[in-house]
């Protein structure tokens, strides 16, 4: 009970330490979504339209990677970025950049797989009309991505939700350094083990609110689209 009111106090009083952590978490996860979208949207779209040997295997792999365990991604990125790793010279390990990379890898398959499915369905629906309008193969993808925009934003929200809530990858490649790479999830893990329950619970409340807001946005978007786009 005492911890609970302490947590609430931290949240409503705008505790600077708490909100610094929240800001970093949002910055990292939003950057990761942007990066993942940059790769995942064209990749998923191309996969929906192109036909080549091995396409089925690639689709299965990407679908399977939607459920990548964050700690495994963290470990892989750790090995890449550590001093002796292939990208060790850039000195990125234990920086926010490393956390962005790890989360982007984690959610690129989510965005790519959902994009692939959405664009493929839409292409079936649009194919005859687009061919009859003389749309060139190159222009197809742009049209399909645009007309699938609502579903694609929803996919990005799903990716953001997963990034913001994961702890394994950012813990391993970020190192949970106070004031530098400490995110909501890593802070919760640490503060809980240290016994500082008010901070952990306060961050938990904020994280929960963010996840709720993300899902509410996805819902609102769908309602809006149903009414305004059809």
């Amino acid at each position, binding site marked *: 009970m005492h911890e609970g009111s302490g947590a609430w106090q931290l949240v409503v009083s705008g505790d600077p330490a708490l909100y610094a952590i929240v800001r970093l978490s949002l910055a990292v996860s939003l950057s990761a979504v942007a990066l993942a979208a940059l790769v995942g949207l064209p990749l998923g779209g191309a996969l929906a339209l192109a036909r080549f040997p091995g396409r089925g295997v690639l689709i299965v792999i990407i679908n399977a990677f939607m459920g990548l365990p964050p700690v495994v991604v963290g470990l892989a990125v750790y090995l890449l970025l550590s001093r002796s790793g292939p990208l060790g010279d850039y000195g990125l390990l234990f920086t926010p950049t490393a956390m962005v990379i790890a989360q982007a890898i984690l959610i690129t398959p989510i965005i790519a797989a959902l994009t692939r499915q959405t664009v493929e369905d839409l292409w079936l*629906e649009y194919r005859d009309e687009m061919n009859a309008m003389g749309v060139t193969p190159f222009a197809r993808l742009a049209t399909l991505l645009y007309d699938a925009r609502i579903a694609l934003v929803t996919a990005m929200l799903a990716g953001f939700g997963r990034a913001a809530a994961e702890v394994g990858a950012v813990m391993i490649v970020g190192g949970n350094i106070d004031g530098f790479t400490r995110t909501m999830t890593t802070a919760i893990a640490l503060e809980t083990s240290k016994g500082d329950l008010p901070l952990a619970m306060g961050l938990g409340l904020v994280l929960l609110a963010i996840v709720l807001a993300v899902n509410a946005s996805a819902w609102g978007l769908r309602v809006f689209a149903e009414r305004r786009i059809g």
Partner: protein
Amino acid sequence: MRAPAPDLPLMFENVSLRAGDTLLLRDIDLIIRPGAPTLLVGPNGAGKSTLLRLAMGLVAPTLGAVTWGGSPDPAPRRRAMLFQRPVMLRRSAGANLIYALKHAGVARDVWPARVRDLLERVGLEHVAQRPARKLLGGEQQRLALARALARDPEILLLDEPTANLDPAATRAVEEIVLNAAASGVKILMASHDLGQVRRLAGEVCFLVAGRLHEKAAAEVFFQHPQSPLTQAFLRGDLVMET
């Protein structure tokens, strides 16, 4: 500007189309030239939609050849198609037209004027900003017509464009089609409504079980049908294999 290459005459030379084990169309010889509307009639499953898809270049024949203005290149130049169930893009009515104009190669600076003109031709000026997929069935059909006309077609293919419309909406669509025909657009249209065929046709192609059974001027087709099968069809009998 657009390529000068014409899409007419549209020519089917000994065309057959096979899907799996079934011949959807067999030995079709047909030349479509500029002139009064050609209506494609026949029972359900006769192959009317399939023939139109070949005419649009959406599928290639298994045997024989389809050519447009003498060329076998299926890329549409000045032809357009209205599908039985048109798909509206997820944008406004006006944006649907702009999309068609853009991909027909129309210069950007004339888009606004062309959109206004097209919307006026189909009586949809008031819905330009509305999401296309939120329009009523008849409005969507007229918008799809405008979108086809945006290609400034020499030949317009229509697949039972009024099958799901009430009489008022049907009349609106028929008027637009007749206006297009009057302005020189060749119409090739499938219909199973003989009343509609009487109202629109200059020429009738009667398709049965994938075969072009009879092709005649509309008057001849209705007044002096040549074969017993055509006579049976006009009486309203169910006609099947020849």
